[in-house]
């Protein structure tokens, strides 16, 4: 049979790609080397965090499943950065690793147009520059209109523990061979990357009384905007302890046998996810580093030792860990390891994640040089949507940098490429005050609805929410308040009192005045009670008022840049004979081949004058 979409790989990117394709009506086939590890969390059992939590909310707004699966399997929830401005609030959850995977498989199995097959894909079938299917290890051929590759760390994966190295895609799982070679024969360029993971240990061997208790939020929230999930009622804590100088001494003993330092690992690992040996080697003056004990689930003794990622020999790992308070009698389930794998520099992709070289072939996840479940999942979602759109002969769906972190993620990958595993940070987003976790639904659900991923009912819920919130804002914009009513509030927060009436909005926009101070002011109180406004809605009002000036400014700025993004560069544009371009610009532009002038302007080495020259040549 001819499928609409085949997804190779069943991790976070693969599962989300299958789900989005199937939801858009595509006949979808998932091929994975192991059907038991669909939705496997290969590293820490947590979802979200700063910038990543925002991505998960966006995935949810676009009809993805990551938020729902996380909510259904979470054991702890925290809203990070609560002490900073609301733009930076970031949800994060610990999940039950086994339930998470189980839940993902359950979601996919409930979709009638999803088929499954277990085997290793060894070859991508390419005819006349178009991808038409795949061939598996046992020689079976599957054909489809579009193919999505989400191979994670499996392509020619090599695991390192001390001086030992062996082939593998994840601990206890074999690697995948054939695809890299096949793609290279078709002109693709590949590279090597490295990442690592810490040991898993037996919680029964730890003394948690010597560690610092880390509870979840008192009033936990949740990831998904939908009402299918509810916040946690019971949570499981994590525990914090610290390394010391003795730990560092023991670790240093193993440096000679470390693949990181003896040269057997040559590829580049992420700077922000360093191994413990990297931390003590680079920051010699630090006497201690944080170690978090994170439970792997509700009903397991397994503990994930976060902060202790390492590829040192197993005996060194154990000796060093035993010096940390609470770990004196630690028993290992399995040691930490480093893994090297193939990736394909993402500048070889178009903005819909389709390869420039081979039509109908899409890449998502770590194969594009990213790291993190959330980054992978987001790409899976976008690749699944775009593969389906392509199969259905519809226009591609691309998010701009001012529409979502997902837009920033994909645009960065495609226009700038990456030399180390790419992770999202809020500092990468120039419009981060617009791209908040609280408004992901308002930003993206209308787009999902247009695509047909989101049904009318969900849209109606959003519209009702937005209209209530608009009523609340317009009340604050229009209603004046008397000095005798507002001055007690102003006095309380040490803001200067007023002699004349003024609009509520004006008072709330004072830096020290909070919405919770305003809701007890005489006229406001009755309005809030009558309209039954929730705390969340009042919070939304506050964000809107406090950030209004900036949001307008960011929107204007985004609009100005959009003018450049509207100017498309013809596909076959020849940069090499425009001598007015600098040499570097000619070279980079020919290599990256941006679609629009905006993308061209974001490439390092392309100056404003180069953009002006392009403008003139492309002009009309």
């Amino acid at each position: 049979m001819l499928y609409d979409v085949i997804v190779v790989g069943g991790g976070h990117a693969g599962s989300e790609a299958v789900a989005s394709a199937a939801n858009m009506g595509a006949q979808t086939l998932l091929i994975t080397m192991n059907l038991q590890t669909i939705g496997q969390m290969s590293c820490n059992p947590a979802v979200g965090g700063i910038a990543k939590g925002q991505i998960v909310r966006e995935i949810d707004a676009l009809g993805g499943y990551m938020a729902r699966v996380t909510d259904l399997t979470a054991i702890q929830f925290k809203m990070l950065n609560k002490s900073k401005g609301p733009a930076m609030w970031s949800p994060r959850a610990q999940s039950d690793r086994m339930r998470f995977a189980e839940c993902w498989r359950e979601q996919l199995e409930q979709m009638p147009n999803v088929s499954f097959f277990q085997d290793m894909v060894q070859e991508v079938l390419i005819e006349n520059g178009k991808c038409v299917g795949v061939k598996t290890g046992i020689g079976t051929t599957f054909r489809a209109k579009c193919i999505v590759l989400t191979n994670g760390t499996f392509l020619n994966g090599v695991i390192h523990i001390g001086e030992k190295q062996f082939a593998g895609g994840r601990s206890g799982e074999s690697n995948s061979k054939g695809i890299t070679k096949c793609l290279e024969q078709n002109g693709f360029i590949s590279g090597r990357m490295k990442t690592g993971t810490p040991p898993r240990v037996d919680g029964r061997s730890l003394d948690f009384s010597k560690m610092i208790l880390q509870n979840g939020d008192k009033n936990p929230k949740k990831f998904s905007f939908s009402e299918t999930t509810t916040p946690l009622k019971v949570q499981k804590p994590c525990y914090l302890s610290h390394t010391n100088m003795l730990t560092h001494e023991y670790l240093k003993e193993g440096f000679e046998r470390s693949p990181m330092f003896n040269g057997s690992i040559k590829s580049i690992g992420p700077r922000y996810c360093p191994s413990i040996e990297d931390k003590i080697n680079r920051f010699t003056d630090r006497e201690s580093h944080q170690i978090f004990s994170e439970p792997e689930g509700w009903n397991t003794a397994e503990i994930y030792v976060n902060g202790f990622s390492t590829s040192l020999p197993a005996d060194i790992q154990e000796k060093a860990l035993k010096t940390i308070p609470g770990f004196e009698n630690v028993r290992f389930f399995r040691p930490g390891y480093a893994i090297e794998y193939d990736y394909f520099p993402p500048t070889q992709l178009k903005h819909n994640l389709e390869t420039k070289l081979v039509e109908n072939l899409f890449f998502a996840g770590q194969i594009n040089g990213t790291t993190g479940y959330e980054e992978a999942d987001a790409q899976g979602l976008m690749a699944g949507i775009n593969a389906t759109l392509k199969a259905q002969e519809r226009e591609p769906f691309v998010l701009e940098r001012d529409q979502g972190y997902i837009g920033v993620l994909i645009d960065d990958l495609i226009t700038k490429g990456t030399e180390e595993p790419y992770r999202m940070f809020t500092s990468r987003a120039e419009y981060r005050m617009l791209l908040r976790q609280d408004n992901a639904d308002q930003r993206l659900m209308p787009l999902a609805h247009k695509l047909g991923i989101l049904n009318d009912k969900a849209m109606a819920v959003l519209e009702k929410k937005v209209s209530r919130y608009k009523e609340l804002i317009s009340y604050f914009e229009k209603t004046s308040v008397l000095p005798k009513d507002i001055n007690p509030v102003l006095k309380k927060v040490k803001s200067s009192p007023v002699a004349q009436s003024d609009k509520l909005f004006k008072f709330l926009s004072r830096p020290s005045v909070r919405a919770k101070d305003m809701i007890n002011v005489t006229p406001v109180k009755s309005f809030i009670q009558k309209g039954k406004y929730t705390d969340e809605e009042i919070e939304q009002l506050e964000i809107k008022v406090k950030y209004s000036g900036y949001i307008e400014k960011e929107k204007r700025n985004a609009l100005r840049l959009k003018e450049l993004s509207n100017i498309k560069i013809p596909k076959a544009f020849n940069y090499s004979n425009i001598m007015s371009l600098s040499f570097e610009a000619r070279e980079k532009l020919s290599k990256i081949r941006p679609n629009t002038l905006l993308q061209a302007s974001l490439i390092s080495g392309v100056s404003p004058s180069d953009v002006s020259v392009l403008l003139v040549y492309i002009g009309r």
Partner: protein
Amino acid sequence: MVSRNYGTRTIFALSSGSTKCAVAVLRVSGPKSAFALQQICGGLPKKRVASVRKLYNPVSNELLDKSLVIWFPGPQSFTGEDCAEFHVHGGPAVVSSVLSALGSIPGMYPAQPGEFTKQAFLNGKLDLTEVEAVGDLIHAETEAQRKQALRQMDGDLSALYSSWRTSLLKCLANTEAFIDFHEEENIEDDILESVSAKVTLVNDEILKHLTDSRCGERLREGLNVVIVGEPNVGKSSLLNSICQRPAAIVSPIAGTTRDVVETALNISGYPVLLSDTAGLRETHDPIEKEGVNRAINRVLSSDLKIFMVDAAKQANLLSGDVELSDFVISHMDQIKLISKSLHLGNKDLHKQMDEQEDLSSIIIVLNKMDLLHSSEVSKFLRENGDTVCAISCKTGQGFDDFMYKLVEKIKILCGDPSQGQPSLTHSRHRHHLNQCCFHLTQFHDFLSHDVVLAAERLRLAVREVGQITGAVSAEDVLDVIFRDFCIGK
């Protein structure tokens, strides 16, 4: 088809090449052009007709120039937008003052390199056959401006701007690290306090730079040049020769000039305030004593000193028995001795004098060459030609050489506008630095309430400095974060 309302900014720039011609053309393009005309010349002139108007600074109401003004409502204009042109009198001071007046109007921005041409193109004002040429033109335009900016940025100024960029980048990285990693990582709690202190420091430095930019001031207010020397060596004759009119009374009686005689001059396009002073000598005449006193003060506050000596009386110097620098020192000492005997002397004054013995701000003029044989001085001149000239005020001998050397010295002290457009780049730098300071001040206002809003100000401030030194990218910030902090689990 390219969007027609691409330009929402109103931009301005000097569009004629050099500031040294008789007339310089300043161009404004964008929706605020009419407003700018009203602000600067008090009303809108008849469209597409050259009118004479007085130009005023809209903030200080100071009269800047009387010039030709033309109003071109869009779309029939060079760029297709509303445009205005000011044909002002050439010269860096006037151009610079009108540019800064334009910059003081809210919503007006100094044009980016090539921006006028780009605007014209976007609005369909250039046809396809011109495309090729325009591409090269934009390139040439930006290349020249880039080189010019680089020239200006050479040396100290460049190092200064780069140091601000580095400091602010570090502040931004620390703030970003606090936002992205403080919750989960070991980031010191007091990191924002140290950022805040550093921001204050940089802000103060930039403000100081903005108010203490000598080159710019010299251009605006004129360079102080003083003629100094013993009585009766021909100082007033030299002044008159430079002025080409008898501004100072000349007589063979030593001590004729009692007060400082000032003349405002335009020397080769530069505004110069030339002062003739009383001859320096010990005297008991109270009026002459006051004259000497004033002369010494004028010497101390001057930018360029013309030391005038009687060639016939300086045999030691001419024969090479005395080194030139020793001669200058002994001459300065002599002034010091005089000032001491006049009871002017205080420590600061003498310290200041010692620091001023720098040959770059001195020209030594040997007068009365008509009384010597030229062979006697030719060797000496060959060796010290940069700083020394030999003239005769009486015959005019050597005067052209003197004027050439004088102009060279002035050029160095003011910055040479023929080497580009310092007033233009200057006003661009000023604009960005002012904006930078504005954002840095706002940073402090927000820091205690919302670190994200504060960070936004820091981002904007860095962006402004980046307009001068080169943009700061997200990668630059992350590089600093990962270098300075141990981040990640």
